[in-house]
């Protein structure tokens, strides 16, 4: 049996080499299919790690509260841009109270908007982030110059702002901004601080922002009473569930919701860990879907192989007849052609893996060169999968030609012209 397989492999390589161009073109379908799967899996993993790293960079022991009830485990409507006004500044104040939520080490509420800031003749369109005084306790970040506003200023509707790095540069250039007065929507604000450069975290550019006290934002800028979001930091990671419970109970109490099942809630509490899981699930699904699409090309490649194997069977009819004449059984013949088609797809698969791996690696190099924290990962699983799927394609699409070959009548096959 071993010498038979060796003989088959020898024959296969001989016949593959005899028709180099044809073999290559046949293989190309498999090469492209496997390569595409490998690239999508690897690039997908890189993109996923990038996304997850972005989310993680905020900290994983954060919980978020959004207005509106989540539907079927998905995000609440407020995440889709619909304005829901059920969450208020007072809710954030209540959560800040240790009696209500002992496991929270910091709470920040946001009321966001956009606006044009001007200093003298310089103007700049930017994001306005009305927030509570302990924003940095929750979100991190550092003051470069000056200071952040105090809880006192937050409550008193103080007209003070802290500028993100980009905003400071756009408005003031090299000159000192601290103590200067800027105008936003006809109101004059005093610049009391400038943030250190932070870059993009969780897809938010923290440098292209103006921070101002949330009450000031709500009353003077927007004329509203609700907040867009409350974010809280949990003291220790193992307390996340407890903290979420505390937040829920506090808010239900404040909103006069008696239904403890959660069906009547007008807010949604999420943890960053949950969000990470959800993002991972979504990106995984996306990756596998794309890989499945790419794998469709393997089907096309397989049909190409079947076609060529049928041609090969016809071309080698006399050879088949001879083999039968010298004692090959039907299964000897069909095994020979099966091994040949598997050899084509396996070699194609290996070329595809190597090629796809190289391309994914180059993509990761380019991404890193462009400044993304992009990890190159070629998972063993996808390699094993690619090898086995391509062999399977060879097996499945080789089956019919092999069967056809094995069932040739020796007499007819020998005298085939």
């Amino acid at each position, binding site marked *: 049996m071993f*010498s038979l397989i060796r003989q088959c492999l020898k024959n296969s390589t001989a016949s593959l*080499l*005899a028709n180099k161009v044809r073999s290559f073109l046949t293989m190309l379908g498999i090469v492209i299919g496997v390569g595409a799967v490998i690239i999508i899996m690897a690039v997908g993993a890189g993109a996923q790690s990038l996304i997850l790293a972005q989310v993680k960079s905020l900290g994983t022991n954060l919980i978020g509260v959004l207005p509106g009830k989540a539907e079927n485990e998905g995000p609440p409507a407020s995440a889709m841009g619909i304005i829901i006004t059920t969450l208020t500044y007072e809710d954030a104040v209540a959560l800040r109270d240790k009696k209500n939520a002992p496991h929270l080490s910091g709470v920040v509420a946001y009321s966001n908007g956009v606006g044009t800031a001007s200093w003298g003749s310089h103007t700049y369109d930017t994001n306005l982030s009305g927030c509570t005084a302990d924003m940095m306790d929750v979100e991190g970040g550092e003051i470069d110059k000056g200071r952040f506003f105090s809880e006192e200023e937050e409550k008193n509707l103080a007209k003070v702002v802290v500028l993100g790095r980009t905003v400071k540069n756009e408005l003031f250039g090299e000159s000192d901004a601290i103590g200067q007065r800027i105008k936003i929507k006809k109101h004059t604000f005093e610049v009391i601080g400038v943030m250190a450069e932070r870059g993009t975290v969780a897809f938010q550019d923290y440098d292209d922002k103006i921070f101002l006290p949330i009450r000031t934002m709500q009353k003077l800028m927007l004329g509203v009473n609700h907040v867009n979001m409350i974010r809280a930091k949990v003291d220790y990671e193992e307390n996340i569930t407890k903290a979420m419970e505390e937040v829920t109970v506090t808010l239900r109490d404040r909103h006069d919701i008696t239904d403890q099942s959660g069906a009547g809630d007008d807010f949604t509490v999420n943890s960053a860990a949950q969000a990470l899981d959800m993002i991972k699930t979504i990106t995984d699904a996306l990756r596998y879907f794309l890989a499945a699409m790419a794998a469709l090309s393997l089907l096309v490649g397989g049909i190409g192989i079947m076609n060529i194997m049928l041609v090969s069977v016809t071309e080698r009819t006399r050879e088949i007849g001879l*083999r039968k*004449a*010298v004692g090959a059984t*039907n*299964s000897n013949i069909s095994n020979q052609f099966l091994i040949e088609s598997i050899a084509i797809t396996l070699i194609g698969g290996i070329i595809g893996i190597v090629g796809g791996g190289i391309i994914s690696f180059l993509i990761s190099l380019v991404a890193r060169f462009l400044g993304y924290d992009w990890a190159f990962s070629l998972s063993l699983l996808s390699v094993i999968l690619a090898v086995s799927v391509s062999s399977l394609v060879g097996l499945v699409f080789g089956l019919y030609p092999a069967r056809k070959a094995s069932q040739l009548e020796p007499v007819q096959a020998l005298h085939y012209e």
Partner: protein
Amino acid sequence: MSTILIQVKDLKKEYRTDEVVTKVLHGLSFSIAKGEFVAIMGPSGSGKSTLMHILGLLDRATSGTYELDGENVNDLSDDELAGLRNKKIGFVFQAFNLLPRTTVMDNVKLPLVYSEDKSDPEKRAREVLESVGLGHRLNYFTNQISGGEKQRVAIARALVNNPSVVFADEPTGNLDSKSGVQVMEILQKLNDAGNTIILVTHETYTAEHADRIIKIRDGLIFDDSKVVNRRIARDGEILK
């Protein structure tokens, strides 16, 4: 009295295509002993090739019995027939039927690939190739050698499994006369060494190298007799 190798009784063969039945063999009975050199002769369409295919286990008779080496082959499965072809039968075809892009050595080893006997195929193939005078061509590819040499490779391949009988179907048909003589010489030498040879041909001249001729015409044995003046092929010259 020598042992019977092939025994056929009332052998018939007909082909059916759609509703048309073509009768090729109308009932043949004869026997061939071990060590004979028999020529099956007849014009094209006589059924001699069909007879050879049935005797060579490449095809099955429609009715009648066929015993090879004392074994009734009528009821054997395809795989069993393949096994018998491998063990007991060697074929030499008019068109050589060598594998392209393959060395002389690998062509001769081919039957051993399907054989149960795994004792040093390399050595055995070299032996038979040397016996047909091709010891110097072992690693040549089949497209690098002459027609006569190709047919000698085919003979070596037929012999490599020590078959009970060698069938030669128009073995000189595609060769120039000098190569043809060499091939006949080898066949005769093999017969002298005790091998049973069955030669299928339409030429009287070639048939006369055998020691018995079975003439077939229209699916029936027309004549079955010993050759009186047997032709002997030697060193490229025909001696009476």
